[in-house]
């Protein structure tokens, strides 16, 4: 496991989440880019990377939002680990398949957060189904775009290199 890309993915996700959330405050659209970052790290680098990304990302999110420190951390740690374990046991390479994993991870993560909140406050809250569906959809779209870009960018760069090399060859010929 390479530590730097994991930390980088989590940090970028937290900064992006806080930056975009600034324009979405009080709006109907809710999303969790940190979770997308955790799933990305888990699928790219495995269960331990997912767990680490979940721990760091969740704790950062908790400490910045002023809630109980550890709730987001614990749910994202478990989500990251489970995602990484699934990713290493099954071949999940297509962006749409990975986006489905993001969707499932979103539901699992939100479910765990609601459950932990209920345990802490000893009161079962009303489950915001519409917000949950919206968040899952938004996370899935962000995840699909991220994984599609991850697949497309190296190929585009290689094609560009090949084009430059072949045109250089023709000139020599």
């Amino acid at each position: 496991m390479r530590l730097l890309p994991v930390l980088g993915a989590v940090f970028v996700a937290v900064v992006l989440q806080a930056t975009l959330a600034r324009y979405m405050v009080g709006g109907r659209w809710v999303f969790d880019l940190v979770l997308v970052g955790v799933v990305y790290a888990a699928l790219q680098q495995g269960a331990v990377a997912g767990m680490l990304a979940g721990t760091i990302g969740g704790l950062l999110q908790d400490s910045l939002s002023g809630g109980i420190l550890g709730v987001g951390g614990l749910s994202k740690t478990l989500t990251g680990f489970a995602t990484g374990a699934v990713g290493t046991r099954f071949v999940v390479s297509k962006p749409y398949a990975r986006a489905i994993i993001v969707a499932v991870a979103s539901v699992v993560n939100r479910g765990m957060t609601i459950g932990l909140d209920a345990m802490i406050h000893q009161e079962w809250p009303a489950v915001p189904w519409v917000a949950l569906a919206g968040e899952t959809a938004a996370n899935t779209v962000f995840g699909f775009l991220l994984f599609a870009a991850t697949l497309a960018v190296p190929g585009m760069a290689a094609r560009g290199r090949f084009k430059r090399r072949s045109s250089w060859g023709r000139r020599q010929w």
Partner: protein
Amino acid sequence: MLRRPLALLVIVCLGHVLLISTQVQSKSGLPVLEAVTFGTMARVQAAVAGVADAVRSTWSQYFALRGVERENQALRQRVLELEGQLQAEQARSAGTRALQEALQMQQEAPVKMLAARVIAGDPAPGSLTVTIDRGSRDGIEPNMAVLAGAGVVGRVIGRPAAHAAKVQLLIARDAGAGAVLEKTGQGGFLAGGFGDGLFRLELVSNLTTVTAGEKVLSSGQDKLYPRGYLLGSVERVDGEGRTRVIFVRPAVDFSHIEIVNVILALPADPDAGALPPGKPLPPRGKGGA
């Protein structure tokens, strides 16, 4: 193969559970860790927000200028109208001042405000707080009221960092304000935290007639927000008697808050920074609807 990662997972999860249980028992959290994380991230967010604003302003000032001429003409006309209104208001104000002097009433001291820029939203999805770029070094303290051009935004919560502070929006779940209906002067409590983005005005006497469009102002009785600032206007009233529910549309558009003003007075005195009765919030800053 998975044995070592599983052991690691168990340790990490136990750490989390311990962390949570410490806070739940003491209700105090980890101030040092929170302060360090919040302070550091606020710096990063200020830089990122600066870059984002620069990109947005470049786009809006250079590339999205279609229809500006038409808008300019309409704005000029509006300025002319407002200048006329301003002159009329100044004349009325001079009359009021003369009356106050005649009655030897005390003039209100101008409230000290500090403009702040919203640099980040809450990273936890669905939470309703924002981060501003002013903190303890600028004189910001917990519970100070925060206003936008259109009305009350919320209050400072938590311990501010040196250059940043967290603001709980009035539409958040645990937020509320003492309120008063402008026409009848009937008091009540304005509660946030409803999924439809509207406030509910509670504890208003059933005998009071409430009509749609009536303005709702802060009463100052909550000792959080000074008296006389605009909170919203009545959207509709459902039901009658005890089952009556008063829906209030917020004056501020919480999805577009950029610049806010923080009242640099602690809310112990409800009249600190209060507006005189009948005078709505003067336009300040860019935030709000």
